[in-house]
């Protein structure tokens, strides 16, 4: 089983307590009504889907309940690191 480090609990715990929550660092537009349809589409649907190092959001849903960011390799499924939500992109 994959073990994931929760930066809030500061414990390394089994993945069954966690839920994947999409790509990380997708900033919500500050003025959505000013966006063109293409920009809005890009914000809602267009994601990177890289092969390799991927920044993503996870939630410790069956634990402390908090969202946090992680860097995971999409080829090896290895977690490089996790850090709290709101911290700069690593």
């Amino acid at each position, binding site marked *: *089983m994959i073990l994931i480090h929760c930066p*809030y*609990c*500061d414990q390394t*715990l*089994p993945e*069954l*307590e966690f839920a994947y929550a999409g790509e990380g660092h997708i900033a919500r537009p500050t003025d959505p009504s000013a966006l063109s349809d293409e920009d809005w589409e890009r914000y809602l649907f267009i994601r990177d889907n890289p092969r390799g190092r991927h920044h993503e959001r996870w939630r410790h849903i*069956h*634990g*402390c*309940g*908090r969202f946090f960011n992680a860097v995971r390799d999409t080829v090896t499924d290895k977690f490089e690191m996790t850090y709290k939500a709101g911290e700069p992109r690593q």
Partner: protein
Amino acid sequence: MADAAIRTAPVPAEPARFDGVTISLGLPLARWSLRGRNPQELGNALGLPVPGRIGETAGGMACLGPDEWLLRLPEGSIIPMGEGQPLSVVDISDRAITLIVEGDRALDVLSSGCPRDLSKLAVGEARRTVYETVEIVLIREGETRYAVEVWRSFAPWLHLALVTAASHLPE
């Protein structure tokens, strides 16, 4: 007609006894879900000690997340509701029931379905986790005594699963 409002427990009242472990229904409790950004503020509003680190417990209050606490007190207890303050105090007394898993093999029974390493759970520690697919709050109340907080509607399944695990413990 008032009788119609009386809740019955969703699991047998009679404890299930096995060699090394007993699974029983805990006493009804008053429960609150507490949310707030600042533990100090919450403590002042309630007049209760608030544990600051996730997993810690103090006086019936368990810290489940960085801004979330579960308070369990004897049935009928009343606490201030923190009116006018940036806090959330929600009565969830009837949402969950408590199953008590007690005995030398209690750890083996709980480990049968919980992915955490429960041997690292210290006495007095409380953690939200899962048993198979059911979310629970696990509180280690004593060396061999665990309280399992489970949502009422999941309780019959969890009770059956724990009893089944207890009846199939390897030697």
